[in-house]
């Protein structure tokens, strides 16, 4: 009997001990339009359960700060944490020039204070200061970050005081400390918040380079994996829209300083970044809209929403031209990929927004998603922002600072569009102005949602649901492929990409067809495993 929906959920979870079962059943559900579909998210993983989650440090240093090209990040702690985030998660970066100012690119460098036992026993502040001096002597960076790892918080090194010292010691240096010890919070999400808070506190609003084009935006929560962000910029530029800064994919300290001068924030990712959009709205009066550049239709919808926001006929016309041209370029390819992919199913388990976004791209390709889950989401990422007021903040999260934001006395400007136009936008169902409705609305009845999907559940759900492909990360990829099922890393794109916008969609289609149709799969079973053959021959021979 093929189970599905909550029956399947129950069947899988019943193998747990009672205690674990009680926990996990709040994280796993089947979409039921009749029910509340309330999910538990952003709570601690049960010890011993093989989770794919990372830590606060990974979210802060690895995700948010890592991509900033001109940001020299010294990891204060023993060597490992710095080593593992070396080279970033394929947040592509490169040195750039803008406003006559050069931004170096340090992503090939891994900096650590490599704390040793005496530093743990007697404190590491002295070593950190020395490390900063050495870094300044060699690189003379304009921004220097200090990220602390687990022992630092425990032994009490005051990295914020050291950052302050450095700012004074090196005039012109933006030195910022991030207390992102791995044990904080329950996932990477805590790190995103810690990083974003400091960016808002120290960086945004300190520049004065006005955008040069009539329309300008920031792209929030786009990390330029495999060049995704560059592709989005290419499309927006074609439309005549300037990207002031990304946060943080394609960006750098130099540009992020001017982010408050853009007209509009586009929010590509979820919780940890729409929180930033909220802060910028409060502080600078900027609106934000939820966008998604993954998928052809999603991209079209997003660009048109931007057009609608700016409400400029010329811009809207140009947007339509760009859409027509880009779609035309990929039309034949997409048709071919669709013909190869139609009717196939997928499961997706990734950190944040991609578990939602890729469903739309898969739809473009004629595929459906039978299971989706987030690694470090909050309830609103599943259910939409309307549930935010109801979310209980537990002990693990309450120590993650929430900034108190007030309107900036000089820079606050809520009148970027007219109140009438804002009212129109709010009424427009195709535009999520300052809002996000979560993953649920795009999912079919009976499909499985699993928050913090662990190894055991992955194996069991995939055995039951038999999707054609499992999108996930490197830690579960090979488990799945050993079992004969394609798994593509949607964290790192398996070192391909970009997958955004039109051409990215086609590239994704290509890579998916490749993965599913590569001949290797047909050789998994040795031909002599067909026992009948052997017996037949044995019968004949002996």
């Amino acid at each position, binding site marked *: 009997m093929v189970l599905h929906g909550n029956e399947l959920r129950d069947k899988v979870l019943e193998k747990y001990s009672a205690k674990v079962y009680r926990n996990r059943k709040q994280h796993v559900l089947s979409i039921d339009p009749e029910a509340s579909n309330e999910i538990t998210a952003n709570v601690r993983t049960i010890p011993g359960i093989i989770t794919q989650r990372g830590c606060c440090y*990974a979210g802060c240093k690895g995700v948010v700060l890592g991509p900033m090209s001109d940001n020299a990040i010294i990891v204060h702690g023993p*060597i490992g944490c710095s*080593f593992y985030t070396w080279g970033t998660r394929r947040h592509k970066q490169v040195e750039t020039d803008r406003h006559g100012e050069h931004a170096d690119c340090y992503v090939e460098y891994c900096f650590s204070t490599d704390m040793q036992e005496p530093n743990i026993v007697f404190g590491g502040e002295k070593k950190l200061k020395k490390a900063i001096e050495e870094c300044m002597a060699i690189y003379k960076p304009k921004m220097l970050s200090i990220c602390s790892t*687990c022992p630092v918080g425990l032994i009490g090194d005051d990295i914020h005081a050291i950052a302050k010292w450095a700012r004074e010691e090196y005039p012109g240096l933006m030195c910022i400390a991030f207390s992102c010890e791995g044990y904080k919070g329950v996932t990477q999400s805590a790190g995103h918040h810690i990083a974003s808070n400091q960016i808002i506190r120290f960086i945004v609003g300190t520049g004065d380079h006005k955008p040069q084009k009539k329309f300008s935006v920031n792209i929030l929560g786009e990390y330029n994996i495999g060049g995704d962000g560059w592709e989005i910029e290419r499309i927006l530029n074609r439309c005549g829209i300037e990207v002031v800064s990304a946060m943080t994919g394609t960006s750098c300290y130099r540009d992020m300083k001017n982010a408050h001068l853009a007209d509009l924030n586009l929010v590509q990712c979820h919780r940890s970044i729409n929180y930033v959009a909220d802060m910028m709205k409060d502080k600078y009066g900027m609106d934000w809209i939820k966008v998604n550049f993954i998928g052809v239709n999603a991209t079209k919808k997003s660009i048109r929403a931007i057009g609608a926001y700016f409400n400029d006929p010329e811009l809207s016309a140009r947007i339509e031209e760009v859409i027509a041209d880009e779609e035309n370029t990929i039309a034949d390819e997409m048709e071919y990929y669709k013909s190869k992919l139609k009717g196939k199913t997928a499961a997706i388990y990734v950190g944040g927004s991609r578990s939602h976004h890729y469903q739309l791209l898969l739809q473009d390709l004629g595929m459906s998603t039978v299971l989706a889950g987030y690694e470090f989401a909050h309830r609103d990422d599943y259910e939409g922002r309307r549930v935010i007021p109801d979310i209980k903040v537990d002990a693990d999260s309450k120590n993650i600072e929430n900034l108190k934001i007030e309107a900036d006395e000089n820079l606050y400007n809520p009148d970027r569009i007219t109140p009438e136009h804002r009212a129109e936008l709010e009424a427009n169902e195709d535009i999520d102005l300052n809002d996000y409705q979560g993953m649920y609305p795009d999912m079919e009845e009976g499909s499985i949602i699993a928050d913090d999907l662990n190894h055991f559940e992955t194996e069991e759900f995939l055995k039951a649901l038999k999707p054609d492909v499992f999108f996930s990360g490197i830690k579960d990829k090979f488990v799945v492929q050993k079992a004969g099922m394609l798994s593509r890393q949607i964290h790192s794109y398996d070192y391909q990409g970009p997958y955004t916008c039109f051409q990215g969609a086609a590239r994704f289609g290509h890579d998916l067809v490749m993965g599913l149709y590569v001949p290797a799969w047909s050789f998994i079973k040795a031909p002599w495993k067909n026992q009948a053959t052997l017996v037949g021959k044995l019968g004949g021979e002996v």
Partner: protein
Amino acid sequence: MLNYTPKEMVEREALVINPCKTCQPVGALYAALGVHGCLPHSHGSQGCVAFHRMYLTRHFKDPIQASSSSFTEGASVFGGGSNLKTAVKNIFDLYDPDIVAVHTTCLSETIGDDLNALLIDITPTLSEGKYIVHANTPSYFGSHIHGFFNMVNGFMKYLSVSTGTSNGKLALFPGWLNPGDYRELKRLMTQMNVPFIMLPDTDGTVDTPTTGEYTMYEKGGTTIEEIKSLGDCKSSLGIGLTISAPSVGFLDKKCKVKGDTIPYPIGIDATDAFILKLQEFSAEEVPASVENQRGHLVDMMVDTHQYTYEKKVAIYGDPDFVIGMMALCLELGMIPKYCITGTPSLTFEQEGKSLLEKYGVKEECKVQAATQLNTTTDLFLLHQWIKNDAVDLLIGGTHGKHIARAEDIPLVRAGFDVIDRYCHSYFPVVGYEGAMRMVEKITNALMDYQDSHCEEKDVEMVM
């Protein structure tokens, strides 16, 4: 590429840039993967094990399973004992390993969790035939190499016993190698008719065949019974002076099994030494098959020498690996211009200098290991050296690739970690077979470079 690395040498004592090592726990995790039916467990925040699994998966392109105590801020303040207890219960409930191998992290070490005490509590709660062992692996001491041998010793500490009756076997501590290397060591011991117990052994656990079936505990790995029986071995042999000497010493101390440590059998001389040790154990003739393969290797070395002679090479990575490659390169007439490891090692520099003397190398070569006092022996330093006096070849893991591209130097990938290529972990670098493979790789790299970089008039059809 690495555009901000200056040619002018800079003094550093605090800032490590592009390290040539990582932390203890991942070494412990890898060692534990070499035990059959074992689930490694990281006692710390869940980020650690996420990183370690990622790191090893990138190298092996194979499933790497391990669990975590998933510390939160509370556990970090009040101690991780209850997390560990919960974890162990859940692990045996859900994943049913034969044994759980716990290692600590800088987090649990800093708060001072007493694993010995915790395991005394936990062990009685396990079902019959189930085991739990641990190793202390503080990230702020040594490197992944220390984590590896600490975990090997952890297994022996809990399991190995001397019954008083010899099992007639050789206890082999092979150090940190790829499954292809472990296979080659076993093949050589079998050919030499030496009965053995090898700890650990990831052949069959991190290079599992793709068959359409996934199982959490594959066929490979040293068995618990074998680990127990280590105490009854006739003698022990450690390969890798930095990584295996502590295990030889531990087994001697605990079970009075005497042993010796020799360098990794990389290159012909070190492989000869390994074979002689095996012959000493078996007291039998070396079989023709071994001798024949050795003759093939010598043939290759004689034939290719002019492409390697006096070529300068920089070697980086784990101490015993670097020493092994250094020996192999010297045997090929190369000059190991820069040899570094980020792992503090008491023997590394002396081993390296002895090799340079043995081969009468006149050119000034740098052989440098990090120390506890100054850990800045790293790839940034290596790059600076190269900028000041270039080399013809790099040998090491993936993290040197940016230097290779920046300076247009060919890179032969070997050692740990190789995260930007495939297939490598299936093939050996040890033994005559491994040396043959390395001779081919090294000469091909140098000859490919010549073919692509020489003037057109100098392109040779025959070489």
